């Protein structure tokens, strides 16, 4: 353990949130390390299907399969973090935490940080277990694992804070994980420092803390501004949040003084309910969180205490995301502007649809829509009251198991340039392979946590 994390001491542990998604801004994390007085810096960088994508990369090259931005992100904070004894935790290991840990070791050596210790947390990869249970039904659709078996590329269980605490117990300066529950990246160091048992009721407060921090800027005024209605100071220099968590479970959220953004009841409440379904039963590997009695108290400007989180016992099963290939989506776009632009764009869509039929291509789903009118909120209410825009953009997308058919969609949109309605411009096309993700549950007892430590 680093000198800044005395076990059981009555001071709070301060945990910073360095990223809310894989490609998040770089500077706020360094600002937290240099000026935030943090003990731990956690980066959440692994979206639902990213791990399936990375599993495919690893198939192509054994040393791949972790977050491609890991090197750049770690390089930018490691020297400052090591100088101040700030420990780093991240799920940037994705489908290959060991290779990611070795990459961090390489960086540490190159930066002259000899003795840096990096722990890789393993055990989330349960692909073999899933493949031996073809009878399992996906929670979302009820289809069985067996029905898509040959197309499965990954299966990863959401590990909890106990697994992260185990990795921290090795004394590592950096902990690299694959799939873990996002709040666990923050709850993990709290239970490691304060010594909470898995059934300790303070885990509710630690989980709500993790939930508030996991999207970084989304609690400090990011994804919030609405000019004139909900203004945010200096959003171009948004500060990322940290939380102080005391041994008694008290939690306060703050950010570096002078950074952009805001923390108040409004920003905290929006983030508390983000991605939450039943607020009395938010299921995580560490507890079933109940925020129905939660509230926020302003301690100082830009410092909010969260109170009243409660919990039920942690579940006996863990959620597993199963990633599998499911064909292709082909897409094309073309813009129209000026007088009668909407009618020209509609005609363009009709032409593409007829062309695809004439050429004998069929799609599981074909979507023809106008950006500027109906692409985000559909053609329903309040479409009737929407004024006709000056510019619109046709978008055609088709889903199909056949890559050639997918490619044709964008091509037929493109040929509108010389064959379609007047004034079509700024064409674009793309084809992407669909990596679908569905979930099953795995009994906790089937999980084998392993921690591997590397030293620079």
């Amino acid at each position, binding site marked *: 353990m680093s000198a800044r994390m005395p076990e059981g001491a009555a001071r709070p542990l301060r945990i910073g949130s360095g990223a809310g998604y894989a490609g998040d801004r770089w500077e706020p994390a360094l600002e937290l390390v240099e000026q935030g007085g943090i003990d731990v810096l956690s980066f959440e960088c692994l979206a*639902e*299907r990213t791990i399936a994508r990375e599993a495919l990369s690893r198939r192509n090259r054994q040393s791949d399969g972790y977050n491609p931005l890991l090197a750049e992100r770690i390089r930018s904070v490691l020297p400052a973090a090591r100088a101040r004894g700030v420990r780093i935790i991240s799920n940037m290991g994705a489908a290959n935490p060991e290779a990611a840990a070795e990459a961090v070791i390489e960086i540490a050596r190159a930066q002259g940080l000899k003795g840096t210790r990096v722990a890789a947390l393993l055990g989330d990869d349960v692909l073999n277990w899933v493949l031996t249970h073809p009878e399992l039904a996906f929670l*979302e659709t009820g289809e069985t694992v067996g029905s898509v078996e040959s197309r499965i590329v990954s299966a990863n269980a959401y590990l909890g804070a106990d697994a992260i605490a185990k990795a921290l117990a090795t004394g590592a300066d950096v902990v690299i994980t694959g799939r873990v529950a996002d709040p666990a990246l923050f709850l993990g160091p709290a239970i490691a420092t304060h010594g909470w048992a898995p059934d300790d009721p303070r885990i509710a407060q630690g989980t709500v803390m993790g939930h508030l921090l996991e999207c970084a800027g989304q609690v400090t005024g990011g*994804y919030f501004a609405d000019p004139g*209605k*909900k203004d945010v100071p200096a959003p171009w220099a948004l500060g990322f949040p940290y939380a102080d968590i005391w041994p008694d479970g008290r939690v306060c959220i703050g950010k570096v003084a002078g950074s952009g953004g805001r923390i108040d009841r*409004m920003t905290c*409440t*929006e*983030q*508390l*309910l*983000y*991605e*939450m*379904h*039943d*607020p*009395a039963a938010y299921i995580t590997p560490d507890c079933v969180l109940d*925020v*129905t*009695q*939660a*509230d*926020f108290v302003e301690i100082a400007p830009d410092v909010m205490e969260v109170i*009243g989180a409660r919990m039920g016992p942690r579940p006996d099963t863990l959620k597993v995301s199963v990633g599998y290939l*499911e064909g292709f*989506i082909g897409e094309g776009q073309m813009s129209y502007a000026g007088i009668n632009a909407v009618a020209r764009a509609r005609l363009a869509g009709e032409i593409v649809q007829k062309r695809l039929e004439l050429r004998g291509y069929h799609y599981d*789903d074909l*979507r023809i829509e106008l*950006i500027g009118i109906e*692409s*985000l*909120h*559909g*053609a*329903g*209410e*309040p479409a009737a009251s929407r004024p006709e825009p000056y510019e619109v953009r046709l*978008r055609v*997308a*088709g*889903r199909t198991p056949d890559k050639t058919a997918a490619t044709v969609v964008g091509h037929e949109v493109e040929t509108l340039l010389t064959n379609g309605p007047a004034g079509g411009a700024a064409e674009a096309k793309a084809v992407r392979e*669909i*990596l*679908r*993700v*569905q*979930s099953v549950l795995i009994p906790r007892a089937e999980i084998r946590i392993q921690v591997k430590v590397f030293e620079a």
Partner: protein
Amino acid sequence: MSLRVYDLAQSRTGDKGDRINVSVIAYDEDGFRHLGEHLTCERVMQAFAGLAHGPCQRYELPKLRAYNFVIDRALDGGVTRSMRMDIHGKSLSSLMLTIELPELA
């Protein structure tokens, strides 16, 4: 101009699979009561017609003056296979805020 959810509350959308949640957080007690009376799941599903199939469930958080709408089958099969531009449904909080309500008493 008529009263909109926008005038009474803030909102944010989150996604999990093919399900979204849309929070509606009132600015004051009067707004919270008014929303409670008029912003029903039926009213919301009317606005989300063609986008979400439902069912819809509304949860109440009186301490936070908030409602949490959870709507199933709302993302064209989910983030990973949706053909929409907005695969996460992130823009749907803005749709929630356009919903018109009867004037405050």
